[in-house]
């Protein structure tokens, strides 16, 4: 029972055919060619497959592709269309990642947090990325980088 769906992916309208049992993560990567969402645990625990769905972080491994018909999806590719964002620049400056597998999810979770709370505390940052697992860094440089973006924003105000 193939269904035609239309999504706005990174500001571009895309129409495609999906099966009811197609998982969004796989459709994004294989059909739509967006590779920043990673295949990790495939059960919502690791956060590697995170995207923004209508502006909120979600786990694409837990969503059927048919569910997002008519919705807006932003991946890391869309976020940095006009250059690296302040979050990305800060993560780069703090040398926050080693392998980088968790990076897209971390960036999107941090972006969502900073959108709601421009200068988060260390605890708020920890809470915001608690669903994004990193096996390389011990989290410290990631947390420092996100807190630093908030501090910079605070100074500007």
């Amino acid at each position: 029972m193939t269904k035609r769906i239309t999504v706005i992916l990174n500001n571009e309208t895309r129409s495609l055919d999906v099966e009811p049992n197609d998982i969004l993560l796989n459709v994004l990567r294989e059909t739509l060619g967006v590779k920043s969402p990673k295949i990790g645990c495939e059960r919502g625990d690791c956060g590697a497959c995170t995207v923004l769905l209508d502006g909120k972080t979600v786990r694409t491994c837990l969503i059927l592709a048919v569910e997002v018909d008519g919705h807006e999806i932003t991946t890391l590719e869309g976020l940095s269309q006009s250059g690296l964002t302040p979050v990305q620049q800060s993560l780069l400056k703090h040398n926050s990642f080693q392998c980088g597998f968790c990076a897209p999810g971390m960036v999107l979770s941090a972006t969502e947090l900073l959108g709601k709370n421009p200068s988060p505390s260390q605890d708020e940052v920890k809470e915001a990325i608690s669903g994004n697992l990193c096996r390389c860094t011990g989290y410290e440089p990631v947390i420092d980088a996100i807190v630093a973006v908030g501090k910079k924003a605070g100074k500007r105000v």
Partner: protein
Amino acid sequence: MAIAHEFDYVKPGTLREAVNTVARYGTRARVLAGGTDLITLIAENMVTPDAVVDIKGIAGLDKIEFKNGVLTIGALVTFSDLRDSPVIAKKFPVIHQMTGWVASVGIRNRATMVGNICSAVPCCDSGPILLVYDAAVLVVGPSGKRKVPLRDWFLGPRKTVLKRGEIATGVTLALPRKKHGACFVKLRRYEGEDLAQASVTVLAYADNTYRISFGSVAPRPIRGERIEALLAGRALSDDLIQEAVRLVPEEIAPITDIRATKEYRMHMVGVMLERGLRAAVERITGSGPAYGTSVI
């Protein structure tokens, strides 16, 4: 790549249409809201429905309503919606706190409270909290509407009283009229995303009556009725707390699993009950630990 199991996907535009669809497929239909639980179950072949009925197209189910002291939470209200709701934060601070401790932001943006009680896993956080407020589940089915008290809702792990063709459309509860304080105590392995190893919820009234519930320590979320009866009408004292803690083994039946042993759970529930009682009673007068702080 897709889920191996094949099914029909139906997205009704009205509740009536949804009920008809679910009734048509009978036990072979599964209702989809946030999907954070259902999709894993289908992916792992734990459930193999013929139809997945997505209720996200039904208007009105995404509302949090607070009218005349009665709170109604629609089936599409996510944990993030609850977390961001000023009325929840003000009137039901333990629910506000709980929603911040369920999974992680990316899950909370999708997972619903009603879905949480429909999944009916013994470690769910919504069940015990809603139990102390004597909440009821709003159900619509082929033969009309019914309201199921949450006490009667859970039958066992992943089992509820929901009948063939029925859909849970919301959950409703009344704000206690009497002066009260509450405490939600969730034991986790670390301060991050984790399921409860055990949870204790206490709702204490200024007239020295109490409502107590437990999660993760029985086949379903349960009320601590013996302890409530023991405490009823008595001011909290060190001796009384110890009497209550001694009743814990009569109330709960924890098991050993990957998250904790039954002995650890049994011991810790006693500690959690003591701290939860003290905090809830202190909060009646505005003292005690602030809502949102963990007492364990």
